[in-house]
C-alpha cells in the first residue's frame, strides 16, 4: 500500500544503534534502505528487496567474490567490494544499491536481517504485504 515503513525498518535494523531516532538523526552516514517501494500507475505498488535467487546473476557478475552465497542468503562483503557495479548491471530486480560509507563506495543489499526470525521489513508491514518464506 506504499506506506514505506519497510524502508524505515530496514534503515533502523541496519543502523549501529538500532534506535530509530538515533539512526535517522545522529548516525552519519545515515544507513540507506536495502529495499524500495515502487509505485506505478493505477495504484500498483510494492515493496521490493533481494529475492535471494538460487543462481544469482549478481554473484556471477561480481568481479572479485565480494558477493557470495551463505546458506542460501546472498551477502555482500563490503570490505572486499570494489564498487565496480557489475552487480548493479546484473540484478534483474534492481535490488543492489550503491552506498557511500566514509568516503568510499560499496554495494549494499538485503541480508534478510541476520539474527532475526523474520526480517524487519516483513515484521513491520502493517498490511501483511510482505511475507517471508523459506524456499
Amino acid at each position: 500500500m506504499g506506506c514505506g515503513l519497510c524502508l524505515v525498518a530496514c534503515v533502523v535494523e541496519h543502523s549501529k544503534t538500532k534506535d530509530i531516532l538515533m539512526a535517522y538523526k545522529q548516525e552519519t552516514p545515515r544507513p540507506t534502505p536495502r529495499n524500495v517501494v515502487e509505485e506505478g500507475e493505477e495504484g500498483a505498488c510494492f515493496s521490493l528487496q533481494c529475492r535471494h535467487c538460487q543462481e544469482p546473476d549478481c554473484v556471477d557478475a561480481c568481479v572479485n567474490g565480494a558477493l557470495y552465497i551463505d546458506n542460501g542468503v546472498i551477502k555482500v562483503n563490503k570490505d572486499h567490494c570494489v564498487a565496480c557495479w557489475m552487480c548493479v548491471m546484473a540484478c534483474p530486480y534492481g535490488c543492489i544499491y550503491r552506498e557511500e560509507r566514509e568516503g568510499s563506495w560499496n554495494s549494499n543489499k538485503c541480508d534478510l536481517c541476520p539474527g532475526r526470525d523474520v526480517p524487519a521489513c516483513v515484521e513491520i508491514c502493517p498490511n501483511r504485504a510482505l511475507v517471508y518464506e523459506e524456499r
Partner: protein
Amino acid sequence: MRYVIIGNSAAGVHAVEEIRKRDGEGEIVMFSREPYLAYSRPLITEFLFDGVPVRKMSYRDASFYRDNRVDLRLGVEVVEIDREKKEVLDSRGERTPYDKLLIATGGTPFVPPIKGGDRGGIFTMMTWDSAKAVKERLPKTKRAVVLGGGLIGMKTAEGIYEAGVPTTVVELAPQILGRILDRRGAEIFQDYLEKKGMEIITGDTVEEVVGESEVEAVRLRSGRVLECDLLIVAIGVVPNMDLAKKAGLQVNRGIVVNERMQTSDPDIYAAGDVAEAFDIVVKEKRVNAIWPVANRQGRIAGANMAGGEKVFTGEFPKNSLKLLGLEMISMGLVDSPDDSCQVITRDEGERYVYRKFIFKDGHVLGGIFVGEIDKAGIVTGMIKNGVRMNGNRERLLYGPPQLIYLDEEYREEKLTRPVVS
C-alpha cells in the same frame, strides 16, 4: 572419476564449485600457466595505480582449493590433449589422465606485426604479471601510448593515467569503446576523459615503433609522431584454442560448444573466453568474453561434468565500466542493427548523462546508461527474460528503471514464485 581443468580463473573456479556440489569424491586437477591463486582479472588495471588494495584482487584464497580438494598445479602449462588416451601432457612432460576435461584457457591479447615491434617497452595487459611489468616501468615513464580504445585499452589507459603518467589512446575506429557504447555515448566519455587530461586520438593507428632498443616514439598512420617510452597494445583478445585445435575439436572463432558446454568430444568441455556459445540478442553462437559469462559457463560445464543437468540458455554482452569517475553500464546491442528497431535516447551529454534503449517487437535488445546507472540491471533482466514492455517506454529514460513498468504478469511471476535468477 578424475576431472582435469585447464585454467584457474573465472570459468575454472566455478566449474570446481559445481563439481563439488555433486561429487565429493572425484579427483580435481587444475592447471594454470600463471603462478597465482585465482584473482580478479578485470582489476589488474587498478593495480597499476593501487586503485584497489591487492587483497581485494583475490578471487579465491587458499582455503577454497583446500576445502574443495583441488590438486592445483600453478605455473604449469598444458601443452597437449591426447583424446585417444584421455590424458593431458604438461610443460613439465608429465601426463595426467582425465575422465572429464574442461578447457577454460581464456584468451591472449592479439598483437599485430608492427614495424619496430621488437623494441623494448611494448606490453599487453592480460595477466597480473603483465600489469606488474607495466607498473614496474611506470616510475621512469614520461609518456605512454595505449593502442586500442576498447574496454581493456581504456582501463589500462586509466590505470596509467591515474598513476600520474600522461597517456594517449590511439584507436583506429572513429570512436572509443566501440563494443560497449554507441557513437554518442563514446563521444561523451571521450569528452569527459579529455577534459580530465587524457589524450584520445581516434581514426588512427600506430604504424611504426621508433627507438633504438626501447620505444622512444610511435608514428601513426596519419604521419603524426607521438613521443613515448611505453606502448601498450590492446587491440583485441583471441581465444586460447590452440590445444583444442591440435586435438581436433571443432572450433570456429572460439571452441564450439553445445548448451551443456560440451565440445565436439563429449568428455571435453569448454567455458569462458575460449568458448563460443549462444548469444540471445544476435541469436547466434559467439564468444562473449566477459567475466559474468565465464562464471556462468564455468558453472554449467562443471555441473554437467559431474553428472548434473544444466543448460546454458544464452548470454549477451553486458558491461559496467568506470573511467576516471564517470560510470556507465550497457547491455545487449548498443546500435540498432536495422530500421525495424525503435530507438529512444535521452542526451544530457553536457552533464555526462546519457541513456539509450533499442526495442524490437516490444522487446528490449539493448540499453546504455551513462552517468546515472542505478537499477540498470532491470533492463538486463528484461533482455535476459525476453520481457515485453508495452506501456510508456520513455519512462526508462528517466530515473532508475522500475520493475513496475513491466507487465503485471511478468512482475507477478518474478515476485511471487521461487526464483532461480
